[in-house]
């Protein structure tokens, strides 16, 4: 292995170690906050696979989250299964759904793909609201985790952490394999990608399935953690907004972009709600607007370009304004 790659791996390993030890020195509130950040990092990173790397900006990825959550709820509550099985089934189910819905929907491009995925998510929400097995709008309960309160906090934190590591690892492996090249080629020029011998339908579908898989796993943990699920929150478009904003804010098409974005957005959100109890979402909206106008390429670009001066922002605006 190249020296640089080895060094990068070691740095990541170190950071991972520090993060793993983090719950042991924090109170439960902070552990929960960290767990939430990890959850968003997972779904934003999963979105990045289909949105950032393949260039197919899905506006309905929350559907995988909700499917993962509901598969877990139904299997555990109605079929009495163990969480481990439900977790795997949730991921598998979400991935399978991605393949099925991907077949017709991945043939669309750009805006149409975005809206189609949005429609799928909303349709699924409406469907779940009407099904008996999911208890519709009344909500479905899940069995409680049989651990101490402290243990529960630890459990969910490490589950999310493990899932995030898996997501990023798989993404990394893809990027260095042929599949990764094919996805980027599709993003840059799908017709040229076809001509060069890439089976774009296959590549896109795999990307979408992976995106669904990891999002579904996150949804599964979320369901268990919440212990109570309703279709509205599970399938809300607000989750989609957050995951996309995080991915873009951190850096689309970059491995750690979504993670940094999730971290940044959640910290900003939390700080705002501490200072402005009532209007924090309002300021959140303002932050999103400003962030997009000034750093459309994301934080990672800002960091790697090393231009911390005003000129960076002015350049961006000049490039993008009418």
């Amino acid at each position, binding site marked *: 292995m190249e020296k640089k790659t080895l060094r990068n791996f070691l740095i990541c390993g170190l950071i991972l170690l520090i993060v793993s030890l983090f719950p042991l020195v924090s109170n439960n509130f902070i552990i929960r906050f960290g767990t939430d950040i990890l959850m968003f990092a997972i779904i934003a990173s999963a979105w990045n696979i289909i949105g950032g790397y393949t260039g197919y900006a899905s506006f309905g990825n929350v559907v995988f989250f909700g499917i993962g959550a509901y598969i877990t709820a139904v299997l555990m509550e109605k079929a009495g299964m163990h969480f481990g099985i439900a977790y795997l089934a949730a991921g598998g189910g979400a991935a399978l759904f991605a393949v099925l819905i991907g077949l017709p929907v991945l043939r669309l491009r750009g805006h149409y793909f975005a809206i189609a995925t949005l429609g799928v998510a909303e349709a699924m929400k409406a469907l779940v609201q009407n099904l008996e097995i999911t208890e519709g709008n009344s909500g479905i309960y899940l069995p409680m985790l049989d651990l101490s309160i402290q243990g529960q906090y630890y459990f969910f934190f490490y589950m999310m952490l493990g899932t995030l590591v898996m997501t990023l690892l798989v993404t990394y492996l893809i990027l260095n394999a042929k599949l990764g090249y094919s996805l*980027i080629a599709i993003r840059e020029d799908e017709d040229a990608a*076809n001509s*060069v011998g*890439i089976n774009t339908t296959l590549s896109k579908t795999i990307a979408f399935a992976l995106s669904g898989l990891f999002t579904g796993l996150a949804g599964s943990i979320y369901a268990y953690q919440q212990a109570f699920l309703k279709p509205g929150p599970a399938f809300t478009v607000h989750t989609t907004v957050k995951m996309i904003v995080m991915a873009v804010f951190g850096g689309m098409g970059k491995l750690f972009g979504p993670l940094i974005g999730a971290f940044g957005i959640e910290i900003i959100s939390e700080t705002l709600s501490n200072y402005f109890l009532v209007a924090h979402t309002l300021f959140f909206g303002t932050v999103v607007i400003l962030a997009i106008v000034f750093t459309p390429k994301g934080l990672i670009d800002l960091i790697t370009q090393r231009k911390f001066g005003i000129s960076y922002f002015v350049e961006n605006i000049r490039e993008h304004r009418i």
Partner: protein
Amino acid sequence: MAILEGKNVTKRFAGLVAVGDVDFYLKQGEILGLIGPNGAGKTTLVNVIAGVYAPSDGDVYFKGKQISGKKPYQIGRMGISRTFQVVRPFPGMTVKENAAVGAMYGAGGKNKSAKEAIRRAEEILEFVGLADQMNKGADQLNVASRKRLEMAKAMAMDPELVLFDEVMAGLNFSEIDQAVELIKKIRESGMTILIIEHVMRAIKNVCDRIFVLHHGEKIADGAVEEVLNDENVIKAYLGKRYKELTH
């Protein structure tokens, strides 16, 4: 032995006949030129061969097997690669990565891992003379280099047949001569080439045979000098490239 054969190839678009009843063949190792005025149907014919369009009538055979109607990526993997008239590099990737994609997914791709494909890409870039720009972003190249990259991508696919669509457009005389040398080198390495061109200087220096399309129909087919002096061909071009044709 004909490596590529087209029989009665026709392509219609909602009533307009872009390519009408065209027969052609290429022998292994030949360089066949395809010329004709703008709008004659040359790129459409190449698109039919490359699988972008299925022919409305007629068939295309590659090494004896029928390929008409197959998808572009399938044809690419069978051993036919093509360049685009308006070059289409992958802007978000480096020159090396661009060529590597060809190596990964072309006819030679099945047996290559990502690393091997990248190595093959470096070889190809060396071959076309882009080795010194390997790590530049593809969008930072000048016109001549972009044309070479386009050719490199096609070559990296390890094809047996290459379709070059106006690779000389926009090049100055010395760049044209270099491109002609490169094409000859490519033929010498064992490939068969179909080349669409407007630049007569290149046609004269590189083709074994040429055939001419006009309004979608073949109006001449044969040795270079013969065809270029053919009355019908001159008439088709009259006013446009008449001077070039006769100098």
